[in-house]
């Protein structure tokens, strides 16, 4: 498992350039361009189970769910950030990509540290240090547990 570390204010254009937004929408079209302007090595080397550790305001900028779909599709286990931009946060909930907001854990992380996650219990271990993060509200867990927003909506429509 590799940990990809990036800084503050990583915006949607760095995660997935705007010029592709009307030509790429499926996971396969998105994958080669993931993080293209931030870290060209990412899309070639990322593996299932990898974790992203980033600073403040991750995903700021446009309403752009391609990076979320792409990160989910390449198998990113979770993103651990100091904070997220809100549209990105919502998009991640809607796609079932796991986001952890834990500034202490990000600050404690240094190159080479191992990270262990216990998502259901809100625990994260970085190297030798243990941190906790708040559980998601039940309304949001319901969406995640259904397998994302569209699956959730489908089951609601069926019940009607």
């Amino acid at each position: 498992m590799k940990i990809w570390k990036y800084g503050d204010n990583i915006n949607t254009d760095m995660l997935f350039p705007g010029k592709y937004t009307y030509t790429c929408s499926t996971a396969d079209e998105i994958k080669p361009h993931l993080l293209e302007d931030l870290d060209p090595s990412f899309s070639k080397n990322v593996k299932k189970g990898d974790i992203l550790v980033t600073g403040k305001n991750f995903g700021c900028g446009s309403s752009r769910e391609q990076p979320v779909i792409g990160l989910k599709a390449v198998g990113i286990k979770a993103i651990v950030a100091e904070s997220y931009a809100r549209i990105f946060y919502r998009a991640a909930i809607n796609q079932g990509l796991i986001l952890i907001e834990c500034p202490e854990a990000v600050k404690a992380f240094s190159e080479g540290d191992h990270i262990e996650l216990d998502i259901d219990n809100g625990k994260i271990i970085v190297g030798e240090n243990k941190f906790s993060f708040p559980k998601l509200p039940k309304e949001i867990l319901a969406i995640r547990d259904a397998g994302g927003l569209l699956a959730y909506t489908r089951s609601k429509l069926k019940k009607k």
Partner: protein
Amino acid sequence: MDMTFVEKLLAEYSDNKDVIPGQIVTVHPDHLLTHDNTAAIIQKITNELKEYGVHSKSLSIIVLDHVIPAASEKTAVNHKVIRDFVRTYDIKNFFDVGVGVCHQIVVEKGFALPGKIILGSDSHTCSYGAIGAFSSGIDRTEAASLMLTGETWLKVPNSIKINLQGKLQFGLSAKDMILHIIGDISASGANYCSVEYHGDVGQLSLDDRFTIANMGVEMGAKNAVFLVDDITTNYLNSIGISRSSYKPVFPDKNALYSKELEYNLSEIEPMVACPHSVDNVKPVSDIAGLDIQQCLIGTCTNGRLSDLRIVAQILKNKKIHPDTRLLILPASKNIYEGALKEGIIETLVRAGGIILPPGCGPCLGAHQGVLAPGERCLSTANRNFKGRMGCKEAEIYLASPATVAASAIYGKIIDPRKEMKK
């Protein structure tokens, strides 16, 4: 309990007596905005649409603006798919290529009303706070779900009160003011929050408020709002909407704000956001003289008639510098027509400007003015992220229409005040 603007509005929409920050509520927004991304949105729910149809024919507002006219076969097919959807499901509020930038259309056609909720699959949906609406950006999947169900959840945000004091000086604009504020607050300074503008807001026209609310998302805000006053009601009157057709929401006197900030507008100078983040803001005087290869005037931030008037005043009987290009995008067909009538277009074309169709143009880097490596663009848009205008080795600087127009004459970034008549 005393509540802020957003608390009061979300309480009403969720049938709660009161709400508190952090609470999750279910709401039925009045409108859902989507644009060229509508094709990708409806492709997610092809089967559900067949089975259940759309929740409401009048919920959606669809505007084709991002890549217009189509730049490739793929974008042309996108547009076609959207037109077919509009026809099949009898979508009431559809605006085809050439009508304008989506946010301008929502305001211009009277969809944005005080006290309403509008969500949109575009981050600058926050613009309608200019009219006293609650509006915010969502993603494509959520837009798809809203088309089917008409409802979604919102977390009640904390509120920040920004108190504007004093008067903007000659030659200064709402753009300089909002760049100054974002430079101070930072790109994440209002994350998840509802921003309310208070104080000496009477000097800000509806266009000014639009520019300021539009950039709310650049400080991370969920929404940014001006409370309804005569300027709002006069504007709505001017587009044929009477005072009796909406119900403004005002915060209570003792509402609780998570932060209160004050800015003295009389101290603000012409400002520029430097690469590659919107909060990297400096006074123009700090970087004056920097050469620029492309100037862009327009977008949902600054493509209104009042902006074009200032630009035309500065460029009247002048020529742009031969080492730079000037692209101009009226934000809507209406604005384009107004500019034609006032002779603005003639002035701009004579000065060497290239008029692009009302839409997003090069703002998102897909077409119509993509930059080359090493080039610099001075733009009135709202975002200067690396790669935003199609090339990651190019630089984007953001400024007011006056600064961009004056700089076009010299091919260098300059303080516009010396080119303006009092």
